[in-house]
């Protein structure tokens, strides 16, 4: 007979779900179930530090000490036909963001600056439903120009929903990873986006996976979802088995339907980070947008010691981040080595 979670006590003195997680996730590498993740999300604040410490142990055991550093750039900004309620780049909302294209020299420069930080990953992003011929051509020419610049950084793309033909084209261009976020739990998705479905996104992710590209898929927390939906989202991501999960915290954007939402509290953000780590012990978990506002410098350090093992440095797509050097200094202070490019090839 299996003991009820509240009756379990670990050798480390933990009780309840933390003791269960130590045995199940840390020792055996089996991610938490939806019900277990929910239990973690409901832990009292007095157990937050123990939770973060366990999540860090799990990360070190199953992923190791290295941190993958990435830079991102928007090659096509604004004017998007979709209505993702969090996004300032939707052409359907009265936001101050105007449409812009980044030219090839600008893209090459952005990739070079990213590589100079020690980052091994550079993601080319476009605000589109899916890429058209012009965008695919721009990406192809951009990747060629980055290589001709002598830059061997790994290149990822995020260009919306794809056809099989476009997946194959990206593979042929040498794109090794594709980002396409599910954004939120399946049950919450219709509250966030109405112009396409969660299932359409899932289909693109399956095509990417089947083609052998690494899958990068995460989302945004703080969009009105419940704890139950956060737990649901964690296990839906785990089911996808992505190589990487970027975690964003909502920055309410002027002119969007979410303009007046409150940002989530730092301790809640940390609890979510740790819970996602315990749901996905082997997955790269990346700090992405919104951490500056939600967690600040101290909270970012706590997150790095609470399950995170990858980070976007520098600016984001339309928002600014903190200087890349500040994050590199933080990693140095935490004695966390930056993943080398040779490790990724």
């Amino acid at each position, binding site marked *: 007979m299996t003991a009820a979670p509240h009756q379990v006590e670990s050798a480390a003195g933990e009780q309840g779900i933390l003791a269960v997680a130590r045995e199940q996730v840390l020792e055996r590498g089996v991610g938490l179930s939806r019900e277990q993740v929910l239990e973690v999300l409901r832990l009292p604040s007095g157990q937050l530090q123990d939770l973060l410490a366990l999540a860090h142990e799990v990360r070190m055991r199953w992923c190791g000490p290295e941190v993958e550093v990435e830079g991102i750039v928007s090659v096509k900004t604004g004017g998007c036909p979709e209505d993702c309620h969090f996004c300032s780049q939707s052409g359907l909302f009265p936001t101050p963001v105007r449409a812009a294209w980044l030219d090839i020299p600008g893209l090459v420069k952005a990739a070079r*600056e990213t590589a100079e930080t020690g980052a091994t990953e550079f993601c080319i992003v476009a605000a589109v439903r899916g890429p058209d011929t012009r965008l695919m051509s721009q990406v192809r020419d951009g990747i060629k120009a980055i290589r001709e610049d002598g830059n061997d950084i790994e290149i990822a793309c995020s260009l919306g929903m794809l056809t099989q033909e476009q997946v194959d084209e990206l593979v042929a261009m040498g794109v090794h990873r594709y980002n396409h976020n599910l954004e939120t739990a399946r049950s919450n998705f219709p509250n966030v986006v109405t112009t396409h479905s969660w299932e359409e996104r899932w289909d693109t992710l399956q095509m990417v996976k089947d083609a052998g590209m690494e899958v990068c898929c995460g989302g945004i927390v703080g969009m009105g979802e419940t704890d139950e939906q956060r737990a649901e989202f964690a296990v839906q991501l785990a089911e996808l088995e992505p190589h990487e999960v970027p975690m964003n915290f909502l920055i309410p954007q002027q002119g969007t339907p979410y303009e007046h939402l409150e940002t989530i509290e730092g301790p809640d953000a940390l609890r979510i980070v740790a819970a996602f780590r315990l749901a996905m012990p082997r997955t790269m978990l990346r700090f992405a947008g919104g951490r500056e506002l939600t967690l600040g410098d101290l909270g970012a350090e706590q997150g790095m010691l609470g399950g995170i093992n990858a980070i976007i440095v*520098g600016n984001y797509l339309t928002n600014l981040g903190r200087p890349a050097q500040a994050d590199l200094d933080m990693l140095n202070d935490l004695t966390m080595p930056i993943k080398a490019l040779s490790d990724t090839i």
Partner: protein
Amino acid sequence: MTVMYCVHCGKGVADADHSRCAAPQSTLEPPRYCAQCARRMIVQVTPSGWTARCSRHGETTSRDDPAAAR
């Protein structure tokens, strides 16, 4: 350059409530409106900076604004 308009909301610096523009999250925003004419600018954010172009008053970059440089 005389700053007449708020770069975050495009309203006059002296004749509007800018409490939201002064909120912490505005430090994560590049300028969106021209400080001289309030036109909405075309802004390109890159990993290490930003460029904002007004159709009348030209281009400003994060290098021109050390306080906002990233």
